[in-house]
């Protein structure tokens, strides 16, 4: 029979109003996944192909973990529809080139917004490779925090930054990076995952210090196999396809303006889809 045709959801955790975790049974994927890779998910037959980073994997249990931020129609629908006991229509991966876990001695792993979860396997991989790992994560507020213990178990230092000062440093992750650079002076590498604006700010923070800074780009995708070119980004003035050439790139070479502008490509349609979806939810309730 079709062994991989059904993808059951085995656990779910809601971190906040908008952020939730799904653990999906897919033993083959759990075995193959490496830090930095992503999957493409279709909630149902009518769905979009939504790229999501593999935030964790458990080779023993045979599961992969996704952490999703509900920002628009598709992710909202996932939030409503994906419950334990249910299953997902399609999930393919692991996609993309795994992150290079360099032999850097001292690294800062930075996660903000939807990047907090996916930075975790990177931090763990660096730890396992023997690096001194400084974790820096950003949230809007203390009540949105998650995985603190998990991070602490793989980080030598762990810094939380909040927009409202309700926990850790009052400010942006770039302040956390700045402080770590000053405190250590021998940081070899920074890895940053989060919204493009945050990643750009991280790259600008490290540029004067000439510290290698890897970022994980999240352009709009369709197939994720290199076939459509929708995910193209500009890196060092060359076209790259994020799904097969990335998603990790040298943050100092990425054209973030280009990425940001291309992410706005479907604003009108996204708004239309969201309004329609909210309407139909209201009618149902």
């Amino acid at each position, binding site marked *: 029979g*079709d*062994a*991989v*045709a059904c993808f059951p959801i085995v656990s779910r955790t809601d971190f906040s109003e908008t952020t939730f975790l799904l653990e999906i049974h897919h033993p*083959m*994927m759990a075995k*193959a996944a490496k830090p930095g*890779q992503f999957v493409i998910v*279709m909630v149902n037959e*009518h*769905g*979009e*192909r939504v790229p999501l980073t593999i935030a964790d994997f458990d080779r023993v249990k045979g599961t992969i973990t996704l952490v999703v931020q509900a920002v628009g*129609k*598709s992710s909202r629908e996932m939030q409503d529809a994906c419950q334990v006991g249910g299953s997902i*229509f*399609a*999930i*393919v*991966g*692991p*996609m993309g*080139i795994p992150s290079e876990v360099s032999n850097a001695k001292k690294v800062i792993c930075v996660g903000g917004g939807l990047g907090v979860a996916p930075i975790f396997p990177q931090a763990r991989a660096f730890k396992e490779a023997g690096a001194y790992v400084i974790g820096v994560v950003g949230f809007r507020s203390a009540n949105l925090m998650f995985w603190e213990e998990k991070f602490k178990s793989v980080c030598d230092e762990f810094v939380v930054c909040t927009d409202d000062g309700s926990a850790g440093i009052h400010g942006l992750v770039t302040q956390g990076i700045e402080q770590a650079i000053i405190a250590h002076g021998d940081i070899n590498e920074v890895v940053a995952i989060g919204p493009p604006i945050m990643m750009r700010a991280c790259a600008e923070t490290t540029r004067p210090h000439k510290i290698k800074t890897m970022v994980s780009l999240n352009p709009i995708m*369709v*197939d*994720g*196999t*290199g*076939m*459509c*070119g*929708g995910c*193209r980004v*500009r890196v060092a003035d060359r*076209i790259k*396809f994020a799904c*097969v*050439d990335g998603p990790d790139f040298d943050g100092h070479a990425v054209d973030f303006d*280009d990425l940001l*502008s*291309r992410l*706005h*490509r*479907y604003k*009108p*349609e*996204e708004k*239309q*889809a969201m309004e*329609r979806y909210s309407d139909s939810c209201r009618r149902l309730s």
Partner: protein
Amino acid sequence: MARKTIRTIPQERAVMSVQDPEVRSKNFDEVSHGFDLENAMLECERCLMCPEPACIAGCPVSIDIPGFIAKMLEKDHRGAYDLLTDSTQLPAVCGRVCPQEDQCEGVCAVGVGTDLEPVAIGRLERFLGDMAIEKGWQKTSHIVANRFRVAIVGSGPAGMACAADLAKAGCSVTIYEALHAPGGVLRYGIPEFRLPNTVVDAEIANLKALGVEFQCNILVGRLFTIEQMLDDMGFDAVFIGVGAGTPHFMDIPGENLNGVLSANELLTRCNLMHAGEFPKYDTPLGLGRRVAVIGSGNTAMDAMRVSLRLGAEEVHCVYRRSEVECPARREELHHAQEEGVTFHWLTNPVELLGDADNNVRSIRCIQMELGEPDASGRRRPVPVAGSEFDFDADTVVYAIGTSPNPILGQTSHIGLNKWGYIDTDDSLATSLAGVYAGGDIVTGAATVIQAMGAGRKAADSIRRYLGIRSSGVVY
């Protein structure tokens, strides 16, 4: 019966009805309806039954064309279909999409050196293929199962043809496909109005009836490697038919503006993801009102004609060579012209211009003229100095060719040539023992029938590699 001659056969091709251009450019229904029985029989009368048929040599899979036409004339349609499917796995597909004018029909004795149209071989094949689907004809042979397991990577025409032959030879065959639906370009590339999904579905159902298993959502190379398939997963041989779908851009200024996309993206959003039915389906397309498509091959034609059907007010084709060099099937070019596409021959884009919001607004082109022949034997287009001009376009689509997908090269030790295509010998064996490859990933972008032919050839080599005696196989 006296031998037919050019003078005794019906001079005109039998009639096949097509949708009116005005009407069809607004719907996704099939453009041509295909022969009815009466007209199919009339067209069969036009075949001269040449003793040395040029048409067979012109067909990449050497279909016995006068043979199947003779059976049709005897009203043995089932027999004709069986003869046809000795050579082609996908008659309803090839009858519709083969570039017949370059292949079988291009050398047909009726058309060569006369002012007559050649026998409509493709249309006759389509007729038989459709009849088989309608009547549920199956050529499920008596399969003698063996203990061999073969994996096929990619569910396009190459993979499907290879799978069919190996299943008939008794192997247990699994097709792995990265997308969520099988069919390759037949599914995501060629639109509904040229090749309805029902036809692709029927061909897939045929394969399933032969026992072929389809597993979608599997990105080979990343979920498991080619080497793992042989070493850990217990496959005795692997066939790679992953196509060559990575689209080219030109690297001119403005290419990353919003509204600039590849034809593959446009077609995938529309054909695979149903963007035309947004918001019922979640995937948007965001097509503008004035669409410019760069390139003039089949992919370009499909992108233009899909754009018209999705409501674009103007569709322009920008091509650096002249109409004579246009690489699309003639029928598609004519259909696109009838449907109202404006063609700008000998025109090349040099820059895309955007508005304040980074949306493409217009396209700057330069006039070209034909110079000396280039490596392809076609006259090389050279720019005419000072001939730049702009025209408005709010969607710009690239259809200027593709290169091989890098994933298998990134994840295995398979030998590639210097352009990144998979290297094979004459038997389609790759550098890895037990691994064969064919179709676009070996030859570069070609045709459905060539990919299918390669799949069959590889199946033959795999049979030999596994030591399966073909005498034991009943087709």
